[in-house]
């Protein structure tokens, strides 16, 4: 029998039981839809992460106090107090691949402005920090090196803090309180959005490092140092050079673990990329399970259908249908079911990812590979789960089938 005739018979058999066919397809629709949506979202998230990391600059290096093991787990982070301001000075002076460096220590605290208050992160740093992070000012100016020297009570607000304390109003020149100290607002940063790790980078304020150390935390060591390499390629050399310099300065003997860690943002980017890939894969395989469940649903209905149509099968065999004719007939029914379900699932998945990305403000990413894979996969599900019922039909004994009531 030719392909068109088989297809026509299959479609007719399926439309005879519209509700049943639709319900049977539902499993595939949901499975494919979920795969398309999760893969689409995963890719969207991945791209988002990449864009943010790129916006931070892939030539950046983070030095943190405390060691980090190979897996990236921090062991006693911040427990060691050996990273100091002079380390930073030494890096700038002695590491040729390091362009700029800025200290960064943090604390959390409550910022009060008039009758508003906001709990946020307070970062102590130096003016070049904003150059390294490629961060420009929305209003006002940066604090100066002189402010650092004097440990002045000046503060730069992140966009989220500005929004929560002052709304649209100009905050520069106004005074806010951190703890019980008054600080003069000198500038407001432009919004930067979420970091690759999902943190709101704009939810924070920046004060001179000296001010933070002397007046807020009382620490005389640094939590982090941020370094920009002369180029992205140079960042790996810089990482090695900084490591050996700091080991030297901290008098760490060969074989002993570092009491600091140097992370390269290019590595972080890769790590974030990998973890979001793993996440996507995980979600997609969970969604894939529902495809299999859908396949079992198809198998179930096809078995019912074969039993119901035993007599029809007997007639077909008696008038000359071969085993492969019957096999193909039922197989094409299950493939039409699963493929239709697959196409509906793709549309459903695309609609879902468009909706979700709109809500999250991400760009829509519908992977053509995922769509192609969904088509192939749903077809495979139809063939795989349809084969057993179809074979059962093809193997029927015509005499018994004709006697079947």
């Amino acid at each position, binding site marked *: *029998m030719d392909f068109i005739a088989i297809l026509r018979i299959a479609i007719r058999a399926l439309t005879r039981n519209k509700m049943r066919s639709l319900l049977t397809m539902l499993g595939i629709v949901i499975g494919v839809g979920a795969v398309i949506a999760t893969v689409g979202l995963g890719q969207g998230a991945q791209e988002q992460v990449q864009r943010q990391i790129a916006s931070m600059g892939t030539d950046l290096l983070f030095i943190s106090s405390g060691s980090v093991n190979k897996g990236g787990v921090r062991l006693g982070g911040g427990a060691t107090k050996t990273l100091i301001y002079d380390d930073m000075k030494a890096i700038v002076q002695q590491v040729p691949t390091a362009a700029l460096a800025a200290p960064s220590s943090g604390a959390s605290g409550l910022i009060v402005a008039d009758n508003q208050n906001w709990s946020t992160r307070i970062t102590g740093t130096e003016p070049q920090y904003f150059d390294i992070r490629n961060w420009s000012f929305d209003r006002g100016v940066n604090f100066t090196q002189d402010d650092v020297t004097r440990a002045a009570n000046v503060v730069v607000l992140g966009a989220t803090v500005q929004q929560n304390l002052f709304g649209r109003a100009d905050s520069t020149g106004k005074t806010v309180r951190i703890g019980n100290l008054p600080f003069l607002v000198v500038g407001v940063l432009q919004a930067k959005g979420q970091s690759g790790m999902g943190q709101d980078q704009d939810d924070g304020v920046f004060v001179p490092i000296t001010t933070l150390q002397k007046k807020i935390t009382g620490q005389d060591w640094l939590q982090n140092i941020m370094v920009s390499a002369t180029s992205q390629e140079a960042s790996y050399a810089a990482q090695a050079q900084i490591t050996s310099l700091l080991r030297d300065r901290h008098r760490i003997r060969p074989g002993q673990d570092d009491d600091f860690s140097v992370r390269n943002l290019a590595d972080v980017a890769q790590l974030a990329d990998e973890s979001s890939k793993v996440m996507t894969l995980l979600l997609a395989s969970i969604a894939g399970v529902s495809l299999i469940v859908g396949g079992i649903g198809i198998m179930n209905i096809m078995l019912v259908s074969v039993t119901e149509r035993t007599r029809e099968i007997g*007639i077909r065999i*008696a*008038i*000359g*249908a*071969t*085993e492969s*004719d019957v096999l193909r007939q039922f197989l094409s029914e299950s493939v039409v079911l699963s493929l239709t379900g697959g196409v509906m699932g793709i549309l459903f998945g695309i609609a879902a990812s468009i909706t979700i990305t709109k809500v999250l403000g991400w760009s829509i990413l519908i992977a053509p590979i995922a769509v192609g894979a969904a088509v192939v996969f749903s077809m495979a599900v139809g063939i795989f789960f349809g084969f057993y019922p179809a074979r059962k039909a093809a193997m029927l004994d015509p*005499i018994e089938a004709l006697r079947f009531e």
Partner: protein
Amino acid sequence: MATLVQNELNADVMMKPERPANGSAVIQVQDVHKSYDLGETKVHALRGVDMKIEPGEFVAIMGSSGSGKSTFMNILGCLDKPTSGKYILEGTDVSSLDKKQLAAIRNRKLGFVFQGFNLLSRTTALENVELPTLYAQTEKSMRQARSKEVLELVGLGDRMGHFPSQLSGGQQQRVAIARALVNKPAILLADEPTGNLDSRTSVEIMQIFQDLNDSGLTIVLVTHEPDIAQFAKRTVVFRDGKIRHDDPVSNHPRAAEVLKSMPTVDED
């Protein structure tokens, strides 16, 4: 009409004549046994049947219930295989054929008509008749033309778009006959084709069979009713899985003549 049911089997390369010297019999059955193993007991449905049917014959098989008529017909129709013995169809030993070749024989050489009509419901008369042509890979343009032709032949030219549920029993059986004829078979096998029909309709069906037989079609028919069997040219009586009688019918009546003398249902 003669051209319609003409035997086209010579063209079929699949059939290699086994013994060309053995005359011209279309069907040759030699010592055929069929038994069903039901665990404890064994049912012997056929216990050594020999039969030879020449082209153009019209054979009626009779016998009491359970005598093995249907079993024999299923073997003739290549739906079943004998436990032992030989079935030679047009010179070919059927036991040497694989499933695909058997399907092709059922499709093209044999036409089957059942007591219960066995039409596909929710499928029009025309599509039911077309079905065997689909499996025969008939050219698309030929399929419908040929199906319409046979439907007209059995007098259902005006019912092609009807579903089986919209047709009377006699009309359904005509559709089934048209379906059996659509691929121009050499032999028509009918297992109690009039079993579910009233006597007048039965005779109408026999008229169709006689006309087909006149045009050269070999027919083997199973029936309980001697009135129906008399329209054939030869009657074979089965008892306990064996042939008891095998006689030619002397001056069998023409169904068309009988119909004229029969009261119509309205007049009853």
